[in-house]
C-alpha cells in the first residue's frame, strides 16, 4: 500500500512529462512525488470559499467600478514591492526604472479597462486624438480610477515646449514612505510615472515620464510627474491645429 501509492503517482507523472518512466532516477521520482499534491490542495481550499462567499475577480462584472480597496493593504503591498525591487537593483536610477516598468504594466491595463467602460457607458464614445484633452483625462479619470481622486494640477513647462507636468499634492503612494537621506533623489512615484507613461503610450502619445519630489511647506510629499513628449507627437499636434 505504502509502495503502490507513490508508484502510481510517479507513473502518472512520467507519462505526462517524459516518454519513458524507466529513466527516472530515484531522486527525481522522489522530488516529483510531491508535485501532484500541490495543485490539488490549494484548489480544494480555494474552491468552496470563492464559490460560496462571492464571485472571483474574474467573474465580477467589468462595467461596475470595483468597491474601494483597503488603503492599508495597498500600502503594505507597495512597501513589499519597493523592498523586493530594491534588493535587485544597484542604484537609485535603476530602482526608479524598475518601478516605472512595474507601473507600466498597470497603466496598460487601466487604459484598456477605462476605454472599455467609457464605450459601454456613453452613447458616443470618443477617442482623444489631441494631447491636451488626453492629458486632462489622465489627470482626472486615470487618477480617479487608480487613486480615487483627481490629481491636483497640470502645468506646462515654460522652457521646453515638449514638457508637461501633473502635480499631486499628497500622493497615496508616498503617504507612508520616508526616503532615507542618502537616497533623497529617489521618488517612489516613478511607479505612478510608469502608469502615466503606459496610458499615454496606449493613446498614441509616446513620452518619457519621470517623477520628481517637489515638496512645499504645506505639502511635504508633493510630487511632480514630468512628461517629456516625443518629437513625433508635437509634429502631429502642429498638423492637427
Amino acid at each position, binding site marked *: 500500500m505504502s509502495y503502490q501509492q507513490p508508484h502510481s503517482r510517479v507513473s502518472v507523472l512520467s507519462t505526462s512529462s517524459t516518454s519513458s518512466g524507466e529513466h527516472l532516477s530515484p531522486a527525481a521520482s522522489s522530488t516529483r512525488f510531491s508535485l501532484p499534491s500541490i495543485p490539488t490542495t490549494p484548489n480544494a481550499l480555494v474552491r468552496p470559499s470563492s464559490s460560496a462567499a462571492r464571485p472571483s475577480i474574474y467573474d465580477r462584472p467589468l462595467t461596475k467600478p470595483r468597491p474601494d480597496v483597503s488603503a492599508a493593504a495597498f500600502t503594505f503591498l507597495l*512597501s513589499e514591492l519597493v523592498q523586493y525591487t*530594491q534588493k535587485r537593483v544597484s542604484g537609485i536610477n535603476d530602482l526608479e526604472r524598475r518601478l516605472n516598468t512595474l507601473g507600466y504594466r498597470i497603466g496598460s491595463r487601466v487604459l484598456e479597462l477605462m476605454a472599455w467602460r467609457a464605450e459601454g457607458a456613453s452613447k458616443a464614445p470618443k477617442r482623444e486624438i489631441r494631447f491636451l484633452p488626453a492629458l486632462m483625462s489622465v489627470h482626472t479619470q486615470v487618477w480617479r480610477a487608480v487613486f480615487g481622486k483627481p490629481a491636483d494640477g497640470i502645468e506646462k513647462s515654460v522652457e521646453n515646449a515638449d514638457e508637461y507636468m501633473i502635480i499631486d499634492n499628497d500622493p497615496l503612494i508616498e503617504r*507612508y514612505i520616508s526616503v532615507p537621506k542618502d537616497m533623497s533623489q529617489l521618488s517612489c512615484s516613478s511607479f505612478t510615472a510608469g502608469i502615466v507613461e503606459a496610458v499615454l503610450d496606449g493613446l498614441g502619445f509616446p513620452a518619457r515620464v519621470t517623477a520628481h519630489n517637489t515638496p512645499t511647506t504645506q505639502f511635504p510629499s508633493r510630487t511632480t510627474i514630468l512628461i517629456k513628449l516625443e518629437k513625433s507627437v508635437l509634429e502631429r499636434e502642429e498638423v492637427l491645429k
Partner: protein
Amino acid sequence: MAIFGLWVINKAGGLVYQRNFADGLAQLTSNEYLVLAGTLHGIHAITSRLSPMGSSSGAQVIEGESFKMTILLTATATKFVLLTSLAELNPENTLQKVYEIYSDAVMKNPFHTPEMPIRSEGFDTRITTLIGSGQ
C-alpha cells in the same frame, strides 16, 4: 502633567527608538538607554509569569513617587513605553496613538528594516504632532 519620554523596544529587547520630550529626565548615554530597555524587557518577562490567574500580558504601569511608566505590549511583542508625570491623563490612549503612527509610518515604509532602529522622518514628524517637540 507632562510626557517625559517615549521608548520603543523590539521583541528581542533592543531599544529601537528613544526620544525625550521634556526636561527633568537624567541625561543618559545611548548605551545606558540600551541597558535600561533590556532590563525593562527582562522585568516585563518576569511580571508576565507572576500572574496567579493563568497567563498574563505582564506589567502595564510602573509607578514611582514622581513619575509613571506606562507600557503597551502589542500582539507582535513590540513594547511601547511612555514616561510621564503622575498626573498625566490617559497615557494608555497616547500609547495607542503612538502604536497607530508606528504601524503607519514605520511598518508601511519600505526603507525600514523590521527590528532595527527606527529612522523614519514620517514617524518623527507625526510623533512631534502628537506629543510635542522634543530634543
